[in-house]
């Protein structure tokens, strides 16, 4: 039985590898039971993982009695359970001996989705302007894409050729999952596999309940702010949450969160639920990490109030739902669980800087969409360790990979000029956040459009836990000849000229614990490696380091630390 479960997980992993073959975009995939229960919660982009349950349940409702082998369903509409419009979700029912046994699901962020602007549109007037809305439809029948529907979709897209490929590969990847699942059913028999699924879900639930039972009972409150609402700059929004741990169950109550807004930072309930669950899983420990499924979700309850930015009404703008609002939900859950479980504290990652550049492709006369995560910085500290060095933001829990600079230069008319860690750019602490990142690219081609729509953290910060430093603010500039133009409001977007350089300065992860509690040797090591300056060592960490030998001056350090008390 155990082995079936393991093989199922490998199956899911292998399927994912196949998708990585065709796309680097963030994605979600997984396996659901015929009744809509999650069997394998895979690794992927948190807002999208568990939320895929919603469109699968919609398939069961909307197409009740009409689901056939060879079907593939598609939606990007949050009303039908998707996350935001650029995220297309493909669902394939898996039949065995004429009976529906599983659903597999694959979703990804597409490079263009129509709408008023190329790429993702962050400044729309309404949800129609935000992009093409695809309610849940049947995109393939008898294993063939429906040509008429396909034509309609592609006619509304700026990158029809690329989309044609993506559609083929995404539906293809669900077919791979199907093939593997059928092999599994052939091998062990349907009864055994389905029994293993029930067993697996039950065992996981038991293990999760046992873990939560160890946590202290009580109630905690926290809030997190975003830079703006996506429309009115400098108008921060607040995600508020109350956590109650009660025996072997936990409750998150988001009722006090700000009302939904006219800008693009609203999120539907499924996004909030997904982010809460994924973040809670972090605190459930490494042993359970590979086993989460429907059972893990049962003891965790998420309450929201309709009409807020974490549970918006149909028609709200949602372009920033996953990165900004989802990121906020993740941060607030980290704060609450870190307060409740100090020995397991996890600090937030750096907030996201993610340029999306759209320009003319001089090779084929079309457009290129250059979307990169390279500019983003690293993880926050966790109790016991400094933040993991990386290039990734909170909303992804570290699963989105960066691309090699060489690959990006070969692919887009941009030259990457610098790309490395910054000094003094992390949230300080007994355990410090990972360093921030400087990234600079030069536009080697004609004029193009820049948006930093999903970026955040230019005027608000993510909180360090237990006295650790917050994430330093993000900054971005355009260098045009001798001129330096500061990008104060990343959500507004701007036009770049040929030869312009884009310089982003990402703040690093947040810290945990008071900086003056940090091991002075660790501070001296950071100074030697130029991640911490002598000044920061002295002023923030209260450690005196010899500038020649990088040895800790014990006497002066003792004085500094005494004076600071």
């Amino acid at each position, binding site marked *: 039985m155990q082995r079936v479960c393991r093989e199922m997980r490998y199956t899911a992993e292998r399927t994912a590898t196949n998708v990585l073959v065709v796309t680097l975009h963030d994605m979600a995939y997984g396996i659901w039971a015929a009744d809509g229960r999650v069997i394998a919660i895979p690794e992927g982009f948190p807002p999208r993982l568990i939320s895929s349950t919603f469109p699968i349940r919609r398939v069961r409702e909307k197409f009740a009695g009409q689901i056939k082998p060879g079907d593939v369903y598609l939606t990007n509409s949050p009303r039908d359970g998707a996350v935001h419009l650029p995220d297309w979700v493909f669902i394939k029912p898996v039949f065995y001996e004429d009976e529906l046994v599983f659903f597999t699901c694959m979703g990804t962020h597409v490079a263009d989705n129509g709408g008023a602007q190329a790429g993702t549109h962050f400044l729309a007037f309404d949800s129609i302007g935000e992009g093409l809305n695809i309610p849940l439809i049947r995109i393939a029948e008898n294993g063939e894409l429906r040509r008429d529907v396909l034509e309609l979709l592609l006619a509304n897209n700026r990158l029809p050729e690329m989309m044609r490929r993506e559609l083929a590969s995404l539906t293809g990847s669900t077919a791979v999952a199907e093939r593997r699942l059928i092999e599994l059913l052939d091998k062990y028999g349907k009864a055994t596999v389905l029994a293993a699924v029930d067993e697996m879900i039950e065992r996981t639930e038991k293990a999760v309940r046992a873990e939560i039972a160890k946590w202290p009972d009580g109630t905690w409150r926290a809030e997190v702010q975003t830079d703006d609402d996506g429309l009115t700059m400098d108008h921060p929004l607040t995600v508020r949450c109350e956590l109650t741990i009660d025996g072997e169950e936990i409750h998150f109550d988001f009722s006090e969160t700000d009302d939904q807004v006219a800008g693009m930072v609203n999120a539907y309930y499924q996004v909030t639920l997904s982010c809460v669950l994924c973040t809670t899983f972090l605190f459930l420990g490494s042993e359970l990490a590979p086993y989460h499924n429907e059972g893990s979700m049962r003891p965790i309850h998420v309450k929201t109030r309709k009409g807020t930015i974490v549970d918006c009404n149909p028609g709200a703008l949602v372009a920033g739902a996953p990165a900004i609002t989802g990121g906020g939900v993740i941060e607030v859950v980290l704060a609450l669980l870190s307060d409740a479980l100090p020995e397991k504290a996890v600090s937030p990652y750096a907030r996201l800087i993610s340029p999306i550049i759209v320009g003319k492709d001089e090779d084929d006369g079309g457009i290129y969409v250059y979307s990169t995560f390279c500019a983003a910085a690293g993880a926050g500290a966790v109790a016991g360790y400094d933040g993991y060095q*990386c290039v990734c933001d909170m909303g992804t829990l570290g699963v989105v990979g960066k691309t090699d600079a060489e690959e990006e230069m070969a692919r887009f008319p941009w030259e990457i000029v610098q790309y490395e860690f910054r000094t003094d750019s992390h949230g300080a602490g007994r355990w410090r956040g990972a360093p921030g990142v400087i990234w600079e690219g030069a536009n080697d081609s004609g004029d193009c459009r820049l948006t930093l729509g999903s970026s955040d953290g230019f005027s608000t910060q993510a909180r360090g836990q237990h006295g650790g430093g917050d994430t330093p603010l993000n900054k971005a500039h355009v260098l045009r000849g001798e001129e330096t133009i500061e990008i104060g409001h990343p959500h507004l977007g701007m036009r770049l000229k040929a030869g312009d350089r884009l310089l982003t300065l990402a703040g690093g992860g947040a810290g945990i614990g008071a900086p003056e509690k940090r091991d002075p040797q660790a501070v001296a090591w950071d100074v030697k490696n130029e991640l911490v300056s002598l000044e920061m060592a002295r002023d923030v960490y209260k450690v005196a380091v010899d500038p020649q030998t990088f040895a800790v001056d014990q006497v002066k350090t003792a004085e500094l630390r005494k004076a600071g008390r």
Partner: protein
Amino acid sequence: MYRICIDTGGTFTDCIVLDGEGKLYEFKSPTTPHDFSEGVLNVINDAAASFRSLPEEFLKQTEWIVHGTTVCTNALVQRKLSRAALITTKGFRDIIEMRRSMKIETKSMYDAYIPPYDPIIPRYLRFTVSEKTKVSGEVVTPVDEAELAEVIEKIKKEDVEAVAICFINSYANPANELRAAEICGQGLGDVFISCSSVLLPKMGEYERESTCVINAGVGPIVERYLTTLETKLRNAGFENQLLVVQANQFVQSASAVVAKPVYLTGSGPAAGPAGAVHLGNTIDEDNFLIGDMGGTTWDAGLVKDKKVSLKVGEWLGDDRLGIKVADVVSIGAGGGSIGWLDTLGLLRVGPQSASSNPGPACYDLGGIEPTVTDAAVILGYIDPDNFCGGKIKLRSDLAREAMSKIAGGLDMSVEEAAQAMFDTVNSNMADAISEISTRKGYDVRDFNLLAIGGGGPLCGAFVAGLLGMRKTIVPKYASSFCAWSMFFLDIGRDYVRSCLCRSDRADLRIINGLYSDMMQEASADVKGFGVTIGDLVFEKSAEIRYQGQYHVLEIRLPPGEIGPEDMRTLEDDFHKLHRELFTFSLPWVPMEMINVRLTAKLKSDRLPIPKRALGTADASKAIIRTNECYFDNIRSATPVYDGALLEAGNIIRGNAIIQTPTATTVIPANTVCNVDAYGNYVIVSEE
């Protein structure tokens, strides 16, 4: 004349000698981690003694020695690397520390409590210089030699043994890197220099730089080791060629390996799959999962349709290696693996090992922790009086004493604790086997388990049982199988060049130019063997993808000059393979070539496998005694067969044990062992 293959493993140094009459002889000596060459010389002395000759005479009559060594893998696994510095392009100081993303593929996204990465070269030893090469290969800014001179001065003060050089876009044009290497060579004396464009000239700075850094970290260690070994062998009278096994299934001269030492990673176990292919050709089996159980590790490999499974790029712990190597998964499970109780009171086995010193408790060399070997002694599988042909007397009382340490904690009898340890290690090994097969998308039940290494025959049939595999094959030279496999490796290397272009617009002059460049490099590499380019067998391939994709597939090309027809075939084959692997192809989408690859090898002669004398099904005359053994906690009288007395055609039903001086094969209940025509034990499940 003799030919010798020597495999230095974690615990034993194995040696197989082929004499002038085509007979094989097997020798074993403990590995000597303080200086691996000592163990090599010891085993040669043992071999010489058995031929009643002095080591000098024996070595003088030796035509060649092929050697697989763990020295590079050990250095990496234990992070005992040479102190190295990195010189890279200004603005790109942290590529090896940023790696790919937040969490490398080997870590779960739900696992937050992982320490930050500790790069092989710390930041303060990573230096930058101004230089710029464009994607097109055009050098915009040559290396700033004044800056480089300053960097060299700083490096001199840091007492490093090696320098890695990796510049952005150096795959497109290595000129700046080579110039920097030249200047460093002049300025830094005998510091080992590792240059990324020489080692792995392909696009993707992270993997190229990481490979270059690993190469720098192991370079001086490998150089010292091979120099010591060669000197010792020369002093002992050896006059001919020393060949070293690389992880890519090829052997090379010691001097060629010293230039690219990173190819030594996983050297020993890498030979096993090649031996499996040869064995498969002889006994007509296509698919093997290979389980090699030594004293310290269990190495799992895969052969499908008589082809060795290779992989490009792998995580070695937290570091990325970009070269193409035999796909082997290693876990800490072996005869010396120690049983212990974790904080939850659960029984764990390994990854710590008692290795050869002090060794298992029953060796009486000071080991006090219970090991898998101790468990096998307690369960009655290993006979304490006849271990290693009676050369090593084991003490079962010490095994029991060590086992009682965990038996108490588990509230079990000593025998039950031994059984629990044995079951645990078998299930760990089964997991490693299923990892390598399911990763490739294969069903383990379509494979035979090839159980090799000192411990493979002991555990193999149990591991196969756990995985539902029907057949376990214990080959004749099971315990020295990797050394035996080295007879079947070719001398050669693989080469790669980046070649970015659309396949339908490819300039064949450029492609053929890259191939002739690689072929010249290959012929220079084999110069030391006294052969010319005409003696080499070439295999060409290209890595291509659909425009817009990020990952490539490797497709074979014909060996001669590439013509337009070959390009069309390449495209067709790509569509076909893409459809096979991913269920779809995109025939209307143009394809891009990314890399061209070449392998060049000298064919070695194939050693025929001799047949064993034919007997009947009845094997009873090989029974030498009956031992009391435990199977699934049940005590049962178990016949012990002497492997030397078995004949082809013998059939043995489990429970039974076959004993030879180098291995103990356990045949569990509900299985039948057939001795095949070549003396291999084929254990088949009866269910």
